[in-house]
């Protein structure tokens, strides 16, 4: 998991365009050179560790990669007894639950950010911001516990059953039976967990919108909302997209909470109320009991896929956020 963005300072941490005056590498006496070498070693430790993670997981996944090839990605069969493995249900569950979470979380997070930056007086904004930070600090397993015993029963009784009974036959997405533990429950718990991260970035980029832009809009007679919607938001959009993708990366890799509420059935659900399975969940549930080279390899390949997807998503988000920060820094 990542540290709370507020504390990590998503924008503050981006590389500053200013070059430091003192060069670490230029000359110096013996002790300074040794110091520079030691620092370099520490610095290189991270890329080395990263590469090592990749190599280690890839080599463990090789048996499955050799046995199934690209068919691993498109097969929906997951049968340890017949030793047949396909990852499609897990890829599907991960992607759909995360997208569902983003669908719920992004509007909420943007609304929250606008409220905090544009509207709320300080005495109200500070405790709310603190509350969202707390939300980000709650361990995943506690979300899962709350999900099992509070959220899932509530969703079953107050959302799934009424919807399935009334429009379930007409709208496939809401078709019963209402299982409770479902891809919907997974999406909702992910949304709750991701909102603080997206809104923290959205807040930071909104707050970075220059004051004169806002004042110009207000002076032209715009209402406060028009100022926000037509002037501040467009200015902040690239950063907000970056924050949303950062949140998506978190949702894709989230393990404990979603494992506890999504139902863990390796099928492709046709209704939001059916159980599903995610890549992270199948790893959490089956890895300890995996027997045989092929099953272990298949699970390792899923880990490799999850690793690859989150790396791509996170890299993209970082580059976007950095670009925005650099632009803000130039001002």
């Amino acid at each position, binding site marked *: 998991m*990542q*540290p709370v963005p507020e*504390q*990590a300072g998503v924008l503050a*941490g981006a*590389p500053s365009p200013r*070059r*430091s*005056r003192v060069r670490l590498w230029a000359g*110096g006496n013996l002790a*300074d050179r040794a*110091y*520079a070498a030691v*620092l*370099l070693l*520490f*610095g290189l*430790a*991270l*890329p080395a560790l990263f590469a*090592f*993670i990749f190599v*280690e997981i890839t080599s463990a996944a090789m048996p499955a990669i050799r046995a199934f090839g690209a068919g691993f990605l498109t097969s929906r069969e997951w049968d340890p007894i017949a030793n047949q493995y396909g990852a499609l249900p897990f890829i599907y569950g991960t992607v759909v639950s995360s997208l569902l979470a983003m669908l719920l979380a992004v*509007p*909420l*997070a*943007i*609304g*929250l950010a606008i*409220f*905090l930056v544009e*509207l*709320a007086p300080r005495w109200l904004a500070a405790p709310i911001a603190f*509350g969202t930070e707390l939300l980000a*600090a709650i*361990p995943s*397993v*506690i979300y899962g*516990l709350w999900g*099992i*015993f509070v959220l899932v029963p509530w969703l079953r009784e107050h959302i799934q059953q009424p919807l399935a009974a009334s429009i379930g036959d007409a709208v496939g997405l809401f078709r019963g039976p209402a299982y409770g533990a479902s891809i919907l429950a997974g999406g909702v718990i992910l949304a709750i967990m991701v909102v603080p991260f997206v809104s923290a970035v959205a807040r930071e980029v909104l707050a970075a919108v220059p004051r004169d832009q806002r004042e110009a809009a207000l002076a032209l007679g715009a*209402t406060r*909302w*028009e100022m926000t*919607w037509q002037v501040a938001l467009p200015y902040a959009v690239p950063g907000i997209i970056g924050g949303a993708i950062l949140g998506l990366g978190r949702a*894709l*890799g*989230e*393990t*404990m909470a979603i494992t*506890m509420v999504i139902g863990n059935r390796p099928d492709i659900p046709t209704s939001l109320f059916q159980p599903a399975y995610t890549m*992270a969940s199948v790893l959490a549930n089956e*890895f300890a009991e995996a027997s045989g080279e092929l099953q272990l390899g298949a699970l390792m390949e899923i*880990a490799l896929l*999850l*690793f690859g997807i*989150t*790396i791509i998503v*996170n890299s993209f988000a*970082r580059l976007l956020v950095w670009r925005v920060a650099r632009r803000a820094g130039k001002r």
Partner: protein
Amino acid sequence: MSAFSFRERRRRAVNVVMLGLTGVAALVTLVPLLLIFLHLLREGLSSLNLAFFTRVPAPPGQTGGGIGNGILGTAQLVLLAGLLGLPIAIGAGIFLAEAGESRLGTLVRFVADVMNGIPSIVVGIFVWAWVVVAMGQFSLFSGAVALAVMLIPMVTRTTEEMVRLVPRELKEGGLALGFTRWRTTLGVVLPAARSGILTGVLVAMARIAGETAPLLFTAFGNPNWEWRLTQPVASLPHQIFQYAISPYSEWHRQAWAASLVLIGLVLAVNVAARFFIRSPYRSR
């Protein structure tokens, strides 16, 4: 009524409605927070007593028992992870602060940020393949390695930031006095950034203390007290997970209570880091 005033009224109405909706969004975000705390207190508070903190879990079906070994295990894991990870993380953070503008520095910073996003379960599996397979069994040591892998990128970035917040004049003053570079960093810059770095370390330690997924296949869990590095060890989050998915209502009760303890620990550290230890150079 003129068309102009109709338009005007519509604009005002949109203004009020949309701004109202942002307030609703803020409210909706906070509802789960309140509900989670409410349920933790309601379901967990009554189970807290001395025995809960000092005993090991009772066998299924029996009442009583505690999470003492889980608390100890989490403390052991987090401290050992700190021992393993913090030197690397703080060193890499100083590297980024000193040489972060170079191409290599940009690469290291980017890798640190991306590593922050690696799913914790993948870290657990990596350490399983690396350490657990080599040792031949689940162990406290492998659990601590997994947590250290999570700790390193977090602390690297906060350390870099905190070192960067130290005014350049301070560093230049040290150099101007004839200090060598390493003495300037260790004797002038780091002490000035100390409280900020400590805050980052505390927050990161609190975060890894709540992690379950990296421990599933490394520390594994243990129903008893354990001090040996080479043996599986219990942890608070893992016990909560096992209790929560068990069929016993007595264990569910204990899962709530253990969650209350865990969140108390995590939040106490976060709040302390936020209010009591502040970098003097931090503007916010």
